[in-house]
C-alpha cells in the first residue's frame, strides 16, 4: 500500500512540476479538475467501499479455504477458478490463502486457476466497476474473461502434472 501511494504521489508531483514549467496556472486547473471529478464520484465511491466491506465480512477467508479443501484434477481447477473469483480482498489476503491451500495439498493446477480467477473475476473489483461503468460493462467483461481461469488451470494440469 505504501509503495502504491508513494508511486502515485510522485507521479502527481512530477506532473505538477511539468505543468508549472509549461504554465503555472495549469497546476491549479489540473488540481481543480481532479477534485471536481473526485467530488462527483465521492458518493458512489463511499457506497462502493461499504459494499466491498460487506463482501469481505460475508465471505471471510476461512470460509473460502474450507470450500476449496484439497480438490485436484479438473474438479479442482473448476472449483479453484470459482472460489478465486469470490475472494473479495487484495493480494495481502488472497496470496496467504493460496499458500495455505498449496501447503494443505491443493494441486498446482488448482492453485494457478485460483489465482487467475482472483485476478480476473475477483468480486473486490465489482463494487467499483458497477459504480463507474455500470452492470452492462461488468457482465460483458465477466463473459469475455469466463474461459481463462479454467483454461490456464487445465494448461498447468497438462504441462506440470
Amino acid at each position, binding site marked *: *500500500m505504501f*509503495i*502504491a*501511494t508513494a*508511486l*502515485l504521489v510522485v*507521479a*502527481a508531483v512530477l*506532473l*505538477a512540476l511539468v*505543468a508549472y514549467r509549461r504554465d503555472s496556472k*495549469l497546476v491549479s*486547473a*489540473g*488540481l481543480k*479538475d*481532479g*477534485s*471536481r*471529478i*473526485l467530488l*462527483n*464520484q465521492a*458518493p*458512489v*465511491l*463511499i*457506497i462502493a467501499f*461499504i*459494499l*466491498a*466491506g*460487506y463482501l469481505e*465480512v*460475508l465471505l471471510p477467508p476461512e470460509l473460502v479455504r474450507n470450500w476449496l479443501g484439497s480438490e485436484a484434477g479438473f474438479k479442482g481447477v473448476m472449483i479453484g477458478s470459482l472460489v478465486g473469483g469470490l475472494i473479495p480482498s*487484495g*493480494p495481502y489476503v488472497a*496470496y496467504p490463502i*493460496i*499458500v495455505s491451500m498449496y501447503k494443505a495439498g491443493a494441486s498446482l493446477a488448482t*492453485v494457478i486457476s485460483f489465482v*487467475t480467477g482472483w*485476478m*480476473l473475476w475477483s468480486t*473486490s473489483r465489482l463494487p*467499483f*466497476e*458497477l*459504480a*463507474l461503468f*455500470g452492470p*452492462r*460493462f461488468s457482465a460483458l*467483461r465477466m463473459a469475455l*474473461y469466463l474461459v*481463462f481461469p479454467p483454461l*490456464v488451470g487445465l*494448461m*498447468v494440469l497438462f*504441462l506440470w502434472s
Partner: protein
Amino acid sequence: MDRTTKVFSVITLLVAALAYQMGGWDLVFAGIKRGLDTLITVAVLIVAAYATAGLAGVLISQESIKNYLGREAGWRGLLIGMAAGAITPGGPYVYYPIARAISSAGVGFATVFTFLTSKGIWDLSRLPMELAILGPRITLIRWLVTSFIPPVLAYIAYRLDKQLEPFLPAGGEE
C-alpha cells in the same frame, strides 16, 4: 443523487439486510466499519490518483489522447493501454477511476478493456508481494501460463471494438 448512486445504494441496503439475517446488527456494522476502515487507509492514495488524473487531463490534450490511445492508433494504442495497466499501482478504487477517465476521453472500448485486463494479469506493483508470499516457482508458472491473456483479449476487443462501444458508459465524468 444520480441513478447509479441510487441503484448502488439499494444494492448495498439489500446486502446489509442479508448481513442482518446472517449475523444481526453486529455484522451490519462490521461491514460498514470494514469498508470505511479501508477507505480511510487508502484515502491518500485516492486523492493522489485523482490529482494525477486531473493534472494529466490538463497536460495531455484530448486530441493527443485520441491519437495515441484511440481507435486510430490501432495496436499502438492497445500496447500503451497494456503498459499503463501493468504499471498502474493500487486497487480497484484507483484503476477504475483512471479507466473511467480514459473512457471519458473517448478512446474506445478496446483500449479501456485492455488497460483493465493488463492491470489484472500483468500488475507489476503486485510482483514483489507475489514473489515473497507465493514463492518463485508458483509466481513463474503463473506468469508463464497467464501472460498471453492480455494480448489475446486485446485482439478480441480490437476486432469487436465498434460493436462493444455501447457497453462503455456515456461520456462525462459523473
